[in-house]
């Protein structure tokens, strides 16, 4: 099963009486680029949180790189190869751009505390390696010119890119991007989508991309999963999904007289 990097099986998330995500299934192969779409409030971010360990799934199993991670903490899941960004950017605001990225490199090549205290050769070498790697990533995203600035001082679009760099720095097998294009204009969005594609090619990661605007991901996704009210209403090739009446209904609303989708029965 090593050819599946991320697997969600019958994942359900309940908060009190509310079922935010119902029987969610997902299988991501290496280098695959999958879009997770759905209208606002469909449960996309909940799915992300269940996958990345922010929440422990109420039911079902999540595995990353073939290892079941139910109930594991996000930091352990990150080390197994799942990295994510956040819908409402969560950078380390007061740290420099470089430190934001360097921090995420720490999973690889962290030296022991005593080495840091005695400034051993190994410690210095590792720090230098980390810095080098951070700059490589920043270069790729055209951010290295700003490496010494405070993360919070970057313009919005760059902050989004920096979050992606930071996620990449953890050396993931799967990159989960939560609405990376939110708040961007059409040109910026198009550039970002191209960039995401390029990231996949260069780093060989699988990408799971959340987006509520379906058109944005059509072009680059190989596969789409559509959520509505916590329920997976469709999945498959973008062209097929686009024509699916259920998806059209979910996005355009239901006309009078049609039975609305009932998340409990679906």
């Amino acid at each position, binding site marked *: 099963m090593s050819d599946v990097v991320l697997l969600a099986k019958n994942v359900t998330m309940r908060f009190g009486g509310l079922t935010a995500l119902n029987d969610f299934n997902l299988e991501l192969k290496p280098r695959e680029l999958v879009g997770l779409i759905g209208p606002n409030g469909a449960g996309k971010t909940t799915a992300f949180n269940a996958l990345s360990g*922010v929440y422990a799934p109420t039911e079902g199993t999540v595995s990353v790189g073939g290892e079941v991670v139910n109930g594991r903490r996000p930091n352990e899941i*990150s080390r197994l190869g799942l990295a994510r960004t956040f819908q409402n950017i*969560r*950078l*380390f605001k007061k*740290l420099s751009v470089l430190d934001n990225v360097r*921090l995420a490199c720490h999973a690889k090549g962290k030296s022991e505390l005593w080495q840091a205290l005695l*400034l051993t050769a190994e410690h210095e070498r590792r720090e230098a390696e980390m810095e080098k790697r951070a700059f490589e990533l920043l270069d790729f995203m*055209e951010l290295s010119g700003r490496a010494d600035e405070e993360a919070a001082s970057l313009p919005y679009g760059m902050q989004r890119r920096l979050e992606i760099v930071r*996620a990449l720095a953890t050396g993931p097998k799967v990159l989960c991007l939560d609405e990376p294009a939110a708040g961007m204009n059409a040109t910026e969005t198009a550039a970002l989508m191209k960039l995401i594609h390029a990231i996949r090619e260069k780093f060989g990661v699988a990408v799971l991309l959340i987006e509520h605007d379906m058109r944005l991901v059509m072009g680059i996704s190989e596969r789409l999963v559509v959520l509505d009210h916590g329920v997976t209403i469709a999945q498959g090739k973008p062209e097929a999904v686009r024509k699916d009446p259920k998806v059209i209904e979910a996005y355009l609303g239901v006309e009078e007289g049609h039975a609305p989708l009932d998340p409990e029965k679906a």
Partner: protein
Amino acid sequence: MRLVRALLPFAVGLPALWAIQAAAPPQLAIILVTAGVNVILAVSLNMVNGFTGQFSLGHAGFMAVGAYTAAKITLAMGEAPANWSPWLWNNGAFTLALLGGMLTAALAGLAVGIPSLRLRGDYLAIVTLGFNEIIRVFIENMRWLGGATGISGLPPYTSVVWVGLGALATVVVARRIVGSTHGRALLSVREDEVAAEAMGVDTVACKVHAFVLSAAFAGLGGGLLVHYILLVTPKSFTFVKSIEVVVMVVLGGMGSISGATLAALVLTFALELMRGLDQYRMVMYSLLLVVLMLSRPTGIFGTKEIWELLGPKRKKAAA
């Protein structure tokens, strides 16, 4: 070669401290010792309250643990046997005592830290304050620790050199940690815990490490202090003392090592200058705290080091 570089601050510091000790008149020496202990306390508390963004109000509790341990050890070691050099024996005993104090304080930090670090912000503050008081009440009830009156007649081991080395060690450790992955992990916990976890940072471990390390140095400060005033009593370690240290950290800027150091020095000297106005001391402290929070809540230097604010920015790396 590397070891030389690692120990460079001490190699430079030691002769300087000897010179200061030789030159300083006794009145100044008292102030210097107090200032040095305050630097140790402020910089070590900063590891928790500044770098990691947690809020401990229990620093004096760890001081107490270190102070009592060190006092017990030096008293047990006693005077140098006839065939020993007294200088060697005394300094050896003191080194052992201080290390012992740091160790027990660190253990206390671990014992307090593991359960309470699940809590956040203001709750953590109150719980650490609670532990501070529990430690104090516990000591007051221990007859072998001298109860409420404490233990007097400690040997006068603490000198300007000792305190100076302690302060230097604290600052060097803090600096090197912040410059390493470990330090960046602590900072990330302060900045955004959820994001830090998503980046693979074990936030719980980070907090515990910061807490233990901070407690160890509080223990060092405690051990040094009581071997100067030659008396160890629970009254020196109430949460009022903890809050005094918090004021220094807050004043200097939470997360700034140089800020905390400077604040500790300035406050010690300022308070010494108004010695006659003893009753206004705590009033000044509290007013300072309120005014500072209202006008510059990040502290005078914020999270930055002094030179970062003074000097020009480091050259931008080539793209």
